[in-house]
């Protein structure tokens, strides 16, 4: 069965449709894989008890000739930031340990309606605050490429699950790079949609104006297939767009088949590279640009001066919104309740609960956000950050006049070692330097593999961004680039992963 877990979702979809395999077999294969490797990887916080039963139901429906979504019967892991009726939803936090919501997130409902098989909930930095998954209250996730290294964050669990072949697909969320940066350091693909492209209803909020839910996979086509399932307008989410989205799978297939980037202007953002970037990352990036140029792309350098303020603005806007969004965790209606010794007023209980239930990074950001919003400081901090946002949107707008897509490394380094950056929050924050601008502006961005870094043999990723609403363009160009790169390497990146089933013979 190990061959099943090495397959892409698209390939599984074909085998399921032709009845060559059943969803029960596919699901069992992945559950076995989880049992075999997750002790070391710790991508999952919860494995579903209903997976096989759901798979059997889907097999039954297929036998009856029901018309099914291409991904029906394909297993999917779900980042624990999303509410699931039948599984705990902790957002990686002790304050929600064991909480089972009375409702499904909209994207989860869509998964179920399309008959994908929820495999379980994946690990994450607590409340999505982090770039390494080390801030999970339940222990870190380990990078399948090197277990002593981080898998990225905040969605390290979803990326690792997919990179370790524990699931062909996963859902993640991205507020400042939490899908794209883990993709880069695990050799996988992750897409942050245009803001509003996918519903946030049921996604435990971090920063409301920045959060988006998106697909995590091993190929561009797989991400597109999953994006097709979860995207679209949701009346429960006022910020969701009413666009009539085209099929992203089709965009990906077209891109993969074309092999040419003729007529595509690829913008390289000056401010998203250079100093502070690992040599191996910059090398692979330069090569990727050459590959694109050789395929007919016009490489243009663009400048976005306000991007140098992006991280600063982000670390004002996010904590401010988060400090408000996290106020609801107060011991009253759900989650942890800690009664201080000797009892106390409800104010005491709230304060004791939040002290015990939140980790240090969360407390740091809540205090920072409270400060940024407080009387006398609003204009200088939050107010100013919102203005930087305007400048960043303007810079994107003018960049997109000169380029059809913008590219940069998706992360400045390869996966660093666990514990390396924990004592220096500021250096941790700089991991998001290339991904943050897209969240501030609301434009879509994808992280996909661009090769292994020479100095450490670890994955690096390239980020492709497009104007708001042009997600299809990213799938198109991304699929072309992916095909070109794989052609130039002679293999897929993931086939070189230590955990790849064909490479094993028993080895983990």
């Amino acid at each position, binding site marked *: 069965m190990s061959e099943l877990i090495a397959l892409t979702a698209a390939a599984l979809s074909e085998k399921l449709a032709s009845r060559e395999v059943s969803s029960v077999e596919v699901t069992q294969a992945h559950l076995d894989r989880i049992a075999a490797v997750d002790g070391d990887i710790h991508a999952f916080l919860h494995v579903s008890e209903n997976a096989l039963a759901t798979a059997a139901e889907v097999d039954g429906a297929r036998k009856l000739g029901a018309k099914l979504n291409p991904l029906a019967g394909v297993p999917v892991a779900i980042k624990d930031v*999303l509410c699931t009726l039948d599984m705990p939803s902790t957002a990686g936090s002790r304050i929600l340990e064991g*909480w089972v*919501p009375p409702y499904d997130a909209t994207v989860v409902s869509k998964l179920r309606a399309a008959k994908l098989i929820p495999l379980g909930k994946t690990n994450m930095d607590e409340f999505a605050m982090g770039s390494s998954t080390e801030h999970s209250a339940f222990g870190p996730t380990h990078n399948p490429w090197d277990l002593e290294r981080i898998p990225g964050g905040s969605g390290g669990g979803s990326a690792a699950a997919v990179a370790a072949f524990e699931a062909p697909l996963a859902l993640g969320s991205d507020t400042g790079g939490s899908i794209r940066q883990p993709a880069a350091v695990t050799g996988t693909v992750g897409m942050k949609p245009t803001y509003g492209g996918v519903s*946030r*209803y*049921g996604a435990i909020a971090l920063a409301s104006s920045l959060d988006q839910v998106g697909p995590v996979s091993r190929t561009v086509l797989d991400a597109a297939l999953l994006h097709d399932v979860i995207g679209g307008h949701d009346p*429960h989410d*006022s910020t969701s767009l009413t666009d009539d989205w085209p099929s992203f799978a089709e965009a990906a297939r077209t891109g993969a088949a074309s092999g040419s980037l003729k007529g595509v202007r690829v913008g390289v953002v000056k401010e998203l590279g250079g100093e502070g970037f690992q040599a191996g990352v910059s090398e692979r990036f330069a090569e990727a640009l050459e590959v694109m140029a050789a395929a007919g792309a016009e490489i243009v350098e663009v400048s976005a001066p306000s991007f140098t303020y992006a991280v600063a603005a982000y670390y004002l806007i996010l904590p401010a919104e988060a400090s408000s969004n996290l*106020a609801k965790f107060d011991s009253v209606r759900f989650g942890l309740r800690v009664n201080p010794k000797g009892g106390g007023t409800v*104010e005491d209980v709230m304060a004791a609960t939040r002290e015990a239930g939140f980790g240090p990074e969360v407390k740091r950001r809540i205090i920072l956000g409270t400060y940024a919003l407080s009387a006398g400081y609003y204009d200088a901090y939050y107010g100013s950050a919102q203005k930087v946002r305007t400048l960043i949107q303007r810079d994107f707008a003018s960049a997109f006049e000169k380029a059809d897509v913008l590219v940069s490394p998706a992360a400045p380094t390869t996966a660093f070692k666990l514990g390396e950056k924990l004592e220096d929050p500021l250096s941790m924050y700089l991991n998001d330097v290339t991904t943050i601008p897209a969240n501030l502006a609301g434009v879509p961005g994808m992280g996909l593999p661009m090769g292994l870094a020479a100095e450490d043999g670890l994955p690096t990723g390239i980020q492709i961004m497009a104007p708001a609403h042009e997600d299809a363009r990213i799938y198109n160009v991304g699929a072309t680039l992916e095909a070109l790169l794989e052609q130039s390497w002679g293999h897929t990146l993931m086939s070189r992963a230590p955990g790849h089933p064909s490479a094993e013979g028993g080895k983990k």
Partner: protein
Amino acid sequence: MSSAELMDFDKALELFEPMLGFEVHVELNTKTKMFSSAPNPAAPGADAGEPNTMVTPVCLGLPGSLPVVNEQAIRYSISLGLALGCEIAPSSRFARKNYFYPDLAKNYQISQFDEPIAHDGAVDVELANGKTFRIEIERAHMEEDAGKLTHVGGSTGRIQGAEYSLVDYNRAGVPLVEIVTKMIPGAEQDAPELAKAYVAVIRDIVVSLGISEARMERGNLRCDANISLSPRGSGKLGTRTETKNVNSLRSVERSIRYEIQRQAAILHAGGTITQETRHWHEDTGATSAGRPKSDADDYRYFPEPDLLPVEPSKALIEELRAALPEPPAERRKRLKDSWGFTDLEFQDVVNSGLLVEVESTVAAGASPAQARKWWTGEIARLANAGSVDPSSLVSPADVAALVGLVESGELTDRLARQVLEGVIAGEGTPSEVVEKRGLKVVSDDGALIAAIDEALASQPDILAKIRDGKVQAAGAVIGAVMKAMRGQADAARVRELVLERANSSSS
């Protein structure tokens, strides 16, 4: 709680000039809540409901939940703004008001901060003495209501001394419009009455717009009254207090009067007024200090990121403007004329804050004179005795039904008062109370004649006296019959029958 010293009201007015301000919260009667599709307990006919039965994840502030704005609430808010003579903002936004409290499911309230939907209006308020005040409206903004807390274990059912509290989120998310006045100088000794009359006008407006049930005793309309005293001739503004828990028109008037007296006494003795929220107690007729607020007012407002700006089109605004009912002053004139009341009679109704009730009762079929008689008469008397507003005792529909029963002869006036008591006590509609208590006037002539015969049996010579021309002798029979029938007879009919008897029989 020791009682505060109060200065004589007139003396207080000599020394100080009162400055007023009001924040009135109106619960809209839309079918669903402001930001969720849960049913609205403030909708017409809606029940308070069993606790936590009218909630969605949004009402409970569950992780991942998101607000979505109720379109009808927007329309109602715009209409209210227009009726208050306000400008409607071409673009307004929601903002988060952040503070922790167990009845606030998200620990922030979605409200509006520096971009309210309506601003800069005015309402004219007429007083009993004929003076008209123009009260300037600073703004009207939309927000959501909080849940309901019940405090358990203390002796008063209030927060102080309670052991624990229980939370019901049915009310959480009910749409509110908060109407804030500019500071109101110049009310002088009319301040208490002006306060009451202003709230009555707001009530009038929202009822005639049909956007709120406006039942103060149910919290559909809530008034926070701000008052400060400025020492005469000083040109300096005083420190203001804000009084909450003012649940009736009656309380509005009383609490303003009380605060003037209380503050005057303190200031005159050389003390200072603490800027604080105070709590009105209708039973003791006094305000008490609220608990000190440690966070002061740092609500850390910022634009609500989960909601988008509200930008009503000019066409919508004009549509709503055209649909406005007539302004209060015009409406009052029209009603007075159509009812045929004298100025005094009409003022009586208005001053008692009963215009809405009388109008609704007339709409339900009663004659204006009867409606006025009952509301300003018996019902007001009972309300006063119970320290509540008349409108909280009985519905206009029931009063109209009662009037109908009297007019049809089924009840005498006296019986009707008993029926009213039964309705107020919750025994049912007037007809139901009549049934249950068996209070119907006997209209069956046969029964009356039988009673008359019985009465005559003990006074046989009465008929002869009547035939002799001493008609007033009939009184004794009538009295006896009424007594025997426990008042459940129409005295006039009994008299007729007695006289018929007298004239038709030969002794």
